[in-house]
């Protein structure tokens, strides 16, 4: 059993003030996020790529938080940029620098070498893309029983959405279950073609 009893009166702050702290610190988030179905993911994505993670590198953002840039080698472009652009940078909030780490629950994580399908948002003048709907915008490709399948990254996310009455209720997200990669790509291509914004 844990017992934490503060000294009475002013002793606590008096004792406390005699010590200093040298702790490597990191933040983590638990995030409530509006669940997006596949059509909404497509609609809000400025760029959609299937690719492989080449490497990740953390840096200090202007707001003092840590961010990480992930360089992804583009294998297939479902919506997006010039065909000769073979790499894309995706930014996630949180990262590691020395003993300091900042983890944001709900933000997607990437492993070097893994294949991912990423739905990205272009924030205008900013140099990197951001995943749509935090972890919802990243789907991992895995080989399962000899078949390439895709799973949505929902780590640390509480997915909610308003129903027709405006009440918050459960959201299953875009990909409640694993799906075959080829079938999903075909579905996404179809949605992109039907979207008024098209492939751009």
């Amino acid at each position, binding site marked *: 059993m844990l017992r934490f009893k503060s000294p009475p009166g002013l002793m606590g702050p008096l004792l406390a003030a005699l010590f200093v702290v*040298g702790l490597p610190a990191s933040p983590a988030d638990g995030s409530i996020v509006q669940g997006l179905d596949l059509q909404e993911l497509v609609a809000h994505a400025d760029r959609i790529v299937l690719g492989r993670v080449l490497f990740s590198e953390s840096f200090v953002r202007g707001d003092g938080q840590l961010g990480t840039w992930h360089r992804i080698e583009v294998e297939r472009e479902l919506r997006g940029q010039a065909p000769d652009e073979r790499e894309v940078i995706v930014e996630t909030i949180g990262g590691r620098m020395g003993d300091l780490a900042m983890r944001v629950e709900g933000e997607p994580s990437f492993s070097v070498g893994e294949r991912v399908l990423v739905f990205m948002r272009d924030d205008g003048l900013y140099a990197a893309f951001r995943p749509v709907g935090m972890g919802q915008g990243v789907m991992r490709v895995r080989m399962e029983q000899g078949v390439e399948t895709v799973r949505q990254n929902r780590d640390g996310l509480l997915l909610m959405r308003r129903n027709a009455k405006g*009440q918050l209720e459960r959201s299953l997200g875009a990909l409640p279950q694993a799906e075959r990669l080829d079938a999903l790509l075909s579905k996404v291509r179809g949605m992109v073609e039907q979207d008024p914004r098209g492939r751009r």
Partner: protein
Amino acid sequence: MNRCSLHAAALGLALCAGLSADHASAYCRMTTEGGAQVGERPCVEKGAPLVWSNSCLSYAVDRRGSQWFENPDGTPNLAEVEALVDQSFFAWAEADCGGSPPNLIFQPLEASTCRRAEFKTDGNVNTIAFLDPWKDPCAGANEPGYDAFALAVTVVWHNTSTGQILDADMMINDRLAGRSNAGGPYADCPDAGCPPGNPGPADLRSIVTHEAGHFIGIGHSDIVDATMFASAERTSVEKRTLTQDDIDAVCDIYPPGNLDQSCNAAPLCGLQLNCETDAEGLPIACDTSPGSSASCGNDGGGGCSASGAMHAPGDTWGSLLLALLGLTLLRRRSARRAARS
């Protein structure tokens, strides 16, 4: 054994308990490693579980409140927001752990002036802020803010090796929800649920109660009815009420003990309710070097020194003053709450 040694020993026990936890319960704990917590994969068991070493905690709602809670004259109704936030936090502190509450005390403070989710060495506040625009005020003009589809985010600063929580800040998206973004309106919905609308109001207590679970280090649960379930299976007000799985989580992490309302809830490194302007009203610069901010002159109620080094006398006296100020504010707010109830 001094207080810090006791804390260190207790934290060690907590870490051991967390790492060897029986996962018969469905809830998961947040850990330093993060990653998958629910669904087809089990709880993350890598890294240290996140825990407050001193579970006598304070928080403050940003004084600008929420645009969705206003007085008849159009001024922010901070008192209503504070009351809803208090109810959400107290739901966890008043859980029934077999006849006793968990060893977890929340002491609400006077309103903060702080919309920054940061941990600093010269003073902190566990702030609860409503943001519109939905980004950290320190973020650059071209720098992306929090995700447009997020309703709320709780930033929990912690020690990466021990999992000790150092500071926690809850940010709530105060914009009007639209086709391309989440947000308000928010309300204190009746038990039958929020009234319909386009967009209809979301129940603020449900959101804050869930986020308060993260505030104390609880991850998501795969029990559908739980407040900490990873998606909102139930109607909008039901996450206000803790289920047995939520209660198991808070009671396991903070088992009944002997904390009482007189405990020291000052934040680590001292209390600083205003993180935006200094005593002279001048803006406090945004901290762009979090990596170098690993020492402070006062551990408040929240922890102990890892280095044992002493600060310069001037700093120590400053810290003493900060701690005394913190105690005064804590007691003033507690007295006000007591009078209100």
